[in-house]
């Protein structure tokens, strides 16, 4: 049997669940961490039954920074890889009027991620092993009026991952940034997404697994997103500010 353990943070996310299945299918054991433990236990039993690997669940709150040290220390196995999937889309309109909503978005997507990943990076460096996957977003590549609170939190996270990648490259620890584009999940349930460029969570799971095998730095699930974001980023700010996209 295989003894590799993968830690997934925000493991209740639809993308995380499908990614977990991909790794379990390839004999990885799983440490699943998220807030809603009752749902998480169902995710765990499903994976255990289908793939016959070992799965353990833990309560974890990204925005409860103080708890991160003890959370990581108390894990029964030190992970051989970690995937950070948690995220909070928030409500842009509300975040503009109510700083609480903006703060929650930033605390989850950025500060929470930095807090836990620094702890893990330290441990991986010491053990000279492991890989780190962060699920960021194309929304972080250019701020748009529609979702710039979320977007800026993801921009920060992407920048963080890129710095971390440079730092850990020296100790041969692989850091991968995932920019999934639109994905059909509970986060986007009530939004009309363009079918052609919207991925299923399973596509993202497969792309992440492959990306790890190939040691990719940044992946877009559908390559067309690279092009779309290139165009979006190329528009001069004087024009961009007038646009309604």
């Amino acid at each position, binding site marked *: 049997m295989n003894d590799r353990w993968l830690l997934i943070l925000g493991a209740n996310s639809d993308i995380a669940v499908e990614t977990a299945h991909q790794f379990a299918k390839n004999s990885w054991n799983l440490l699943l961490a998220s807030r809603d433990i009752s749902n998480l236990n169902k*995710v765990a039993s*499903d994976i255990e039954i*289908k793939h016959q690997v070992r799965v353990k669940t833990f309560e974890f709150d990204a925005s409860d920074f103080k708890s991160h040290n003890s959370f990581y220390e108390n894990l029964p196995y030190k992970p051989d890889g970690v995937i950070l999937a948690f995220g909070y889309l928030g409500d842009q309109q509300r975040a503009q009027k109510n700083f609480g909503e903006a703060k929650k978005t930033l605390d989850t997507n950025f500060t929470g991620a930095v807090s836990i990943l620094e702890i893990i990076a330290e441990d991986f460096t010491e053990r000279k092993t492991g890989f780190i996957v962060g699920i960021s977003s194309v929304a972080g590549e250019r701020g748009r009026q529609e979702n710039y609170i979320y977007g800026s939190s993801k921009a920060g996270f992407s920048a963080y991952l890129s710095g971390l990648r440079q730092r850990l490259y020296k100790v041969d620890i692989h850091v991968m940034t995932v920019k999934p584009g639109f994905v059909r999940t509970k986060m986007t349930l009530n939004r009309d997404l363009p079918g052609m460029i919207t991925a299923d969570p399973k596509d993202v799971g497969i792309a992440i697994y492959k990306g790890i095998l190939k040691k990719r730095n940044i992946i877009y699930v559908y390559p067309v997103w690279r092009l779309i974001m290139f165009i979006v980023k190329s528009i001069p700010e004087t024009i961009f500010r007038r646009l309604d996209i």
Partner: protein
Amino acid sequence: MKISGWGRYPVIDSDIIHYHSEDSLFKSIDKHEPIIAHGFGRSYGDSALSESILKMRPAKRMLQFDQVSGRLTCEGGVLLSEILKTFLPRGWFLKVSPGTKFVTVGGAIASDVHGKNHHQTGAFSESVSEFSLMLPNGSVKTCSRSENKELFHATCGGMGLTGIILKATIKLQKVQSSTISQQVIKTASLRETFQAFEKFSDEPYSVAWMDCTATGDSLGRGLLNVGHFNDVGDFNYKPPGNFEVPIAFPSFLINNGSIKLFNQFYYNKNFKKVSNSKVSVDSFFYPLDKLKNWNRLYGQKGPLQYQFVLPKENSFEGIKEILTYLQRNNVYSPLGVLKLFGKQNKNLLSFPMEGYTLALDFKVDDKILSLLNDLDKKITEWGGRIYLAKDSRMSEEVFDSGYPKADKFRSIREHYGMNELFNSLQSKRLNL
């Protein structure tokens, strides 16, 4: 969102709610609008259609499996195909499976579906030990043959009208290999087809394809397919990929000429009186699943399925009359499927009763709709009934005469207030 059943008729505009968790479910339902659970939409008619539709597919987790007894507890939206993929390689198969594996456990219970082994094993509910049902007041009840019996028997076959099946425990069956030893028996007449069913009734699985275009002495000729799992062999299981029918086919491709040609070809492609072969689970149980969206072959409107069962003593005469009647009106079904059912169970609205069941496919038009009204009458006279999972058109009278426990079902619905929340187009039409 626009939505319809597998028969693509009727199409309605519904509010869609996606199941998220047991805790949030009741809150997510608007109690002022009729709602109905929706599995994988493989029922042909209007049983899973309503103003509001609760998609249960997100409830797709397996929760527990006992390797000794083969008991699996899973959420209501788990597909039978997922159960096969997980357990066939470990030597387990479904006790009862319908002719498509793309149905949910919840949908299989709600229609109390039957397979090719009904004459020996009974309907899907035979494999169900218990399930959790959410009632209209949000409470969740465990139902089994000993606990909340009444709800158990109303829900199996109850077409989603008693509440939401959240999770279920079903018993899988041990098999010794993943292949089936199949025999195909060619019959020359309806009499021979019936005799073949009786002769091979020791075989666990049997189903006949009937050539609905054959007339005179050949009326009711067909190919009886029987089989059992091989005792030795491996458990290799690789579900085949499927081809997609890309767009609604021009429906004129299905006409009397092409139907006759296809049926003759199919019948004659088997030369021998009896032929033996070793086949895979998918080719034996799920031949139609090879074509994803094959319902599009029937054009914009899709196939109208009509499945009925007649009591055994009337089956032969009744089926003969019905086939002859259709032919006299120059109407042919491209596909006729005949099965023998065993004893009826205790569920209030389960379809199977001891006798023969025939499923026919039609392309929808006004002529066929009026002919089917005539068939309804004949079936009522012969003491038979029509399958709710395939129905979008029968009248309340025809339903009541076929399902003698309908009033009992209605009074349970009223008692629990189910009729005030859980309603489908079908339940309204049938005044359930």
